[in-house]
């Protein structure tokens, strides 16, 4: 899933203060799972903004809506009636959602309420971790299903580096050393032999380094 975090309210206010009517729109998929932009957070932010303007003695019309996916037109259509009634849309979608709304509602300013962070998993309630960088050529099969690109701070393909201590990363003891995880996992499944081989430089052209990417499937097109 895409993991995101709500921006500070002061930063949001700076971007929306110029508008008199605001439609706060949540996205009930990825960013709901990470408690950043789902229905709950949409209500929370709308209420917080109301209180914030009340405290400052300013008048604003603040409405809210939540759709299942801000990155798919069929769902975006769900707010088609509400959007024209407001000067601005404050999106609690990820970066993809914000831009999809802007593509559909061409004459409407769309403001992000979240900082989109990473592709990750819910490790436990309240803890989300990054484990995929979307490099475009998954090599997890060689590394015991632990990604050296996403989970090593230095993206080492021939790790670990000299800073790994007690299974922790040198840059922050809160971060588990990705290479320590790789070695332990391969050891556990009896495939440590996979690490003896030199791993050549990564072909980053399939990652964002190759420019903005797209996938086209003729069989899926209308």
């Amino acid at each position, binding site marked *: 899933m895409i993991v995101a975090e709500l921006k500070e309210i002061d930063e949001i206010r700076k971007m929306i203060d110029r508008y008199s009517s605001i439609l706060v729109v949540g996205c009930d998929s990825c960013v709901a799972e990470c408690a950043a932009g789902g229905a709950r957070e949409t209500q929370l932010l709308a209420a917080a903004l109301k209180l914030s303007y009340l405290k400052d003695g300013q008048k604003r019309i603040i409405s809210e809506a939540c759709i299942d996916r801000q990155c798919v037109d069929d769902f975006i259509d769900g707010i088609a009636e509400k959007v024209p009634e407001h000067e601005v849309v404050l999106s609690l979608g990820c970066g993809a959602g914000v831009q999809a709304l802007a593509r559909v509602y061409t004459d409407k300013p769309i403001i992000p309420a979240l900082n989109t962070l990473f592709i990750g998993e819910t490790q436990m309630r309240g803890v989300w971790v990054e484990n995929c960088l979307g490099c475009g050529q998954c090599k997890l099969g060689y590394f015991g299903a632990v990604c050296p690109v996403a989970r090593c701070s*230095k993206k*080492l*393909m*021939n790790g*670990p580096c*000299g*800073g*790994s*201590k007690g299974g922790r990363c*040198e840059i922050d003891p809160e971060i588990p050393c990705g290479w320590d995880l790789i070695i332990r996992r391969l050891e556990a499944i009896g495939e440590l032999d996979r690490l003896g081989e030199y791993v050549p430089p990564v072909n980053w052209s399939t990652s964002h380094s190759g420019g903005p990417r797209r996938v086209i499937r003729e069989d899926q097109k209308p």
Partner: protein
Amino acid sequence: MKTESLLEKALESGKFVVTAECGPPKGADKEILIKKGKSLLGWIDAVNVTDNQTAIVRMSSVAACSILKQLGHEPILQMVTRDRNRIALQSDLFGAYALGVRNVLCLTGDHQSFGNQKEAAGVFDLDSVQLLKTAHDMRESGIIIGGEAIQGPPQLFVGAAENPFADPLDWRVIRLGKKVRAGADFIQTQCIYNLARFETFMAQARDMGLTEKTYILAGVTPLKTVGMARYMATKVAGMDIPEELISRMAKTPKEKQAEEGIKIAVETIRRVKEIPGVAGIHLMAIEWEHMVPEILQAAGIGNRPAGVA
């Protein structure tokens, strides 16, 4: 001889080789570098020129190598993959060689979060092993990454670092083997304080036949104060300083601590010299380069005959 490197020549001669680290200045003042370089001249076989170490912006390693070369030093260009992609790294290998550099030490580098440019993008296009193989393949096959032939491939003597003290411990010597297979002609280790652990590492390396294939230079860093010892033990990544060394420094009166630190370094040099497979030492006297001659003399290692360095 694979190259024209004077470091290779010294190592091949079988004598106990000494390299030392020389950190370029935080700025463009080359006089600082020249002063440091002069204090080392005649005492060492080659000088390691660090590449923005601990991610602090400093004079470029290639430029500093060239300046030290003009002084009469045999420079070892340290290169980290943190700041440059493969285009820039390979280009700098060409340039450095054209300026007379004959040795390169391939490193990944400390993460940018340690330095004074914490907001920088970490490049990490290659890792240290891949850079090592790149420099090796330039020399052996005359190609760059991707296999394209080049005009005048740099004939570099290629080194790598290894940390015998990082975790997982048993993995360190396996990784050393990987580096040797990728083409490491020489290895410089992390600073050694835990001699027992280093002896185990060397025994493992000998068992795997790695000391036959590469030259291992043992890293030594003199401690200046007990504060430095504590700082390195707790704050510097991949450092293993046994508690008894720290308490030995702590028990020493403040004004005598530098002297004690040097004594420890000298003892370390004497001990690693006796370990089979150790080809020499790599002295990293951080911002203390002028102490190198004194340490070497105390360790019974004389200065280098003129003409070698």
